[in-house]
């Protein structure tokens, strides 16, 4: 059934239940992926799915019900489920369904044309072959994958708001397994696919980073000047970004509570949130409530300027919404998430950062973020790998150590920023970016 037929069936059922304030949020995804293992195509997969989430206001409380079953009978059933869920909810809804913004930004990031299965197959094979051709140490288990993924969102509500968004990416992954002597190592590279040059970039990065891991030594426990790579700092930022959510603040789950206007980071740190960051593959012009989105500074020169809000938290704290209402999945309740959340780059080249560190460690891998980092307290202790920095230069590979600290203290002690912004590949609307950062005196546990 197409969306309009579904919507008509649903609206009819809503009116029969006496429900006049509602929102219909429909999200559909399609993706195709072709993978090789040892240069041979070994897997092809395609998926299509679509889900519809109904939000209704019943006696001042919000009820949700969601389904992937797109039939007329399911649409007739959904309002009753949402109503019953609203009735058992105890939290009053203070903002209701959104009446719509006066204007919305133009969508600057246009959807790319998704590659055909045949093109994906060509890219996967080319990449698989190039990985093996790159170095004789590349061995069995080496794989590649070319992917296209598209998402469509439609938000329609009882106030006449009708918004839609269509976005997609093509991406390439190369995973190199290398063996030298008895030791095997692997690494991967994941990039937005724009053409044959991406194949070269992915292959070079995956193979060189896998090889760099071979023969990694250990480090002594102690305090070190640490350069955290942009990609790893991005991951740390993603884990602790919940502290910037006004909902976490209101619920007593953020250490940043009461710190608006205060210095929470080193004065060289500026963090922006941009729904349409230049250079990103996906972007949006409206949030999960239908509010028009915009770029904002969250931290400016180390000072916390604003928390991230949806309409409910903004009302509770006497602020304007920052249009960061979000849903973790199509069926999730309205929460808060950033869009493209970035520590803005500074002016130092990587070599300059190493020179400033003198003797220290360059961290290029952090694992176990879902467990070894506590978003509430800010404490982290994480398995890491990277390179020693000796006399201001990158030296031999090291692994098998942890880096420990507290994110909120780390933000205050960042002493220098790299000049290149690293950004991840994401198919959703939330992503994190960071340059390399230099942090003096971090705790390292090794041998």
């Amino acid at each position: 059934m197409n969306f309009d037929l579904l919507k008509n069936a649903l609206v009819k059922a809503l009116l029969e239940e006496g429900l006049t304030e509602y929102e219909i949020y429909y999200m559909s995804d399609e993706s195709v992926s072709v993978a090789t293992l040892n240069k041979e195509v070994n897997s092809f997969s395609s998926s299509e799915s679509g889900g519809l989430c109904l939000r209704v206001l019943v006696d001042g409380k919000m009820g949700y019900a969601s389904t992937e079953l797109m039939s007329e009978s399911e649409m007739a059933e959904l309002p009753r489920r949402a109503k019953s869920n609203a009735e058992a909810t105890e939290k009053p809804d203070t903002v209701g369904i959104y009446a719509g913004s006066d204007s919305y930004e133009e969508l600057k990031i246009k959807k790319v044309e998704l590659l055909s299965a045949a093109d994906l197959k060509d890219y996967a094979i080319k990449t698989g072959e190039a990985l093996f051709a790159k170095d004789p140490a590349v061995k069995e288990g080496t794989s590649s994958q070319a992917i296209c993924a598209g998402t469509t969102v439609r938000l329609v509500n009882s106030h006449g708001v009708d918004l839609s968004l269509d976005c997609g990416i093509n991406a390439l992954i190369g995973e190199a397994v290398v063996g030298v002597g008895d030791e095997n190592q692997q690494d991967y590279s994941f990039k937005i696919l724009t053409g044959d040059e991406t194949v070269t970039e992915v292959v070079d990065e995956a193979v060189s980073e896998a090889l760099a891991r071979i023969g990694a030594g250990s480090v002594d426990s102690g305090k070190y000047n640490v350069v955290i790579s942009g990609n790893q700092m991005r991951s740390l930022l993603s884990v602790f970004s919940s502290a910037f959510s006004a909902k976490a603040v209101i619920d007593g789950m953020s250490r940043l509570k009461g710190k608006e206007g205060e210095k929470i980071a080193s004065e060289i740190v500026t963090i922006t949130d941009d729904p349409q960051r230049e250079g990103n593959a996906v972007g949006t012009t409206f949030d999960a409530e239908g509010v028009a989105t915009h770029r904002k500074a969250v931290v400016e020169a180390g000072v916390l300027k604003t928390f991230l809000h949806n309409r409910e938290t903004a009302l509770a704290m006497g602020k304007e919404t920052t249009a960061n209402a979000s849903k973790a999945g199509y069926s999730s309740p309205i929460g808060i998430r950033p869009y493209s959340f970035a520590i803005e780059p500074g002016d130092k080249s990587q070599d300059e950062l190493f020179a400033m560190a003198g003797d220290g460690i360059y961290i290029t891998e952090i694992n176990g973020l879902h467990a070894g980092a506590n978003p509430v307290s800010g404490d982290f202790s994480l398995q890491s790998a990277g390179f020693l920095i000796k006399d201001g230069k990158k030296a031999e590979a090291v692994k098998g150590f942890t880096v420990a600290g507290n994110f909120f203290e780390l933000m205050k002690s960042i002493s220098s920023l790299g000049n290149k912004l690293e950004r991840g590949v994401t198919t959703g609307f939330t992503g994190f970016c960071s340059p390399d950062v230099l942090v003096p005196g971090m705790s390292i546990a090794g041998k």
Partner: protein
Amino acid sequence: MIEKRLYEQILSIALSGGADFAEVYCEYTHNGRISLLNERIESITDEVVSGVGIRAFRGTSTVYGSTSDTTPLGLIKCARSVAAAMGEVGEGQSVVLTERIFPNIHPVRIAPASAETSIKTDLLKLACSSAKAYDKRIIQAAGNLLTVDHTIEIANSEGLLTSDRHIRTRMAVSAIASDGTETQSGSCSPGRGMGLEVFEMFKPEDIGTEAARQAMVNLGAVYCPAGQMPVAIESGFGGVIFHEACGHSLEATSVGIGCSEMCGKLGQKVANEKVTAIDDGTIPGAWGSVNIDDEGHPTQRNVLIENGVLRSYMIDRLGSRRMGMPSTGNARRQSYAYEPTSRMTNTFIDNGPDRNEDIIASIEYGLYAKSMGGGSVNPLTGDFNFAVNEGYIVRNGKICEAVRGASLIGNGSKIIQDIDMVGQNLATGQGMCGSSSGSVPTDVGQPLIRVSNITVGGR
């Protein structure tokens, strides 16, 4: 959910691209979530997951298509795209299905969907109010009650047509403690492959109290010192050490493509002789149990390591083709949108010969990890990490001050050699394990164990 004749038609189409095997997986799942925050029900969401995954094999090449469009036309379109991706489409071999019913060894007394919402909200309120009542410094207690009612049908070109219904229930409470300067958290989240009767086994007030107790311990804890030391890891979720350090490396997902440090080691001594490790998907009502796996193969008890010797891998159908070994009933997937692969079910280190008190007494200076968080591993190298949620320093054989912010890192094949004491209080803990076929419920478990030397990350 789908007529037998339509299954036969879809399978025949899926085979028509030159495949030697085809399978259809059809799912209808109702997920319910009730969230409590600030002492009131914050939100209630429910979701119907409905769709079909169609898979075809030729040798070890696979094609997978999935769709939420479960109309006959949608299914035929998906099957045709699978056939076309496999190769030149010809005449599909006809398939005749025979229905097979496997026994249900996980009976449910109170299906969550059939209970009044107020019964569920009351359970959650009881847990969270117990957490708040534990201490004045507990400033927040958040709870979720999660219920899953999952029905699947599986048909394949070998003639199998079967189905299963699986229900699971979990309550997760997290407590936040603050003394005005420090903020720390604690959590407790038991679950079972059962209905609401699970709360006769786990009293909601105990769940809340445990979360609050852990948050208060962490509030009073000092930072964990860093370095290498012996560590005693408590039973229950402590078993995550085996899950990460060894379990993933025994899955056909990595063994079948030669990317595991456990390749080619069957019959060899890979662990300390005190270590016997088992994966058992048949434990009645356990969190990681199912009657049949997601390829329609009954789950079974697999002894992975017996007295230190590697006895078995965990194998799905594709892994079986790659490795030339039979399936072990370990094929799992989060939903129809994922191609299944070999995964753990309930995986644990069995009871050993040592008395628990002797294990603590044996440590001159080290760490007692009472409660573990999650972790991760690289199966190729065996390098793993996991977090300690509640830990204490051990001095002269006595448990002393609480420490926080610790993690343990090491290498799997080395650490299982270094598990040199195994106690006798086997218990399990519940987790959601993430891998290429999505997030699936798995139990981890062990008695109290001692690892003779491991790197403790702290500061």
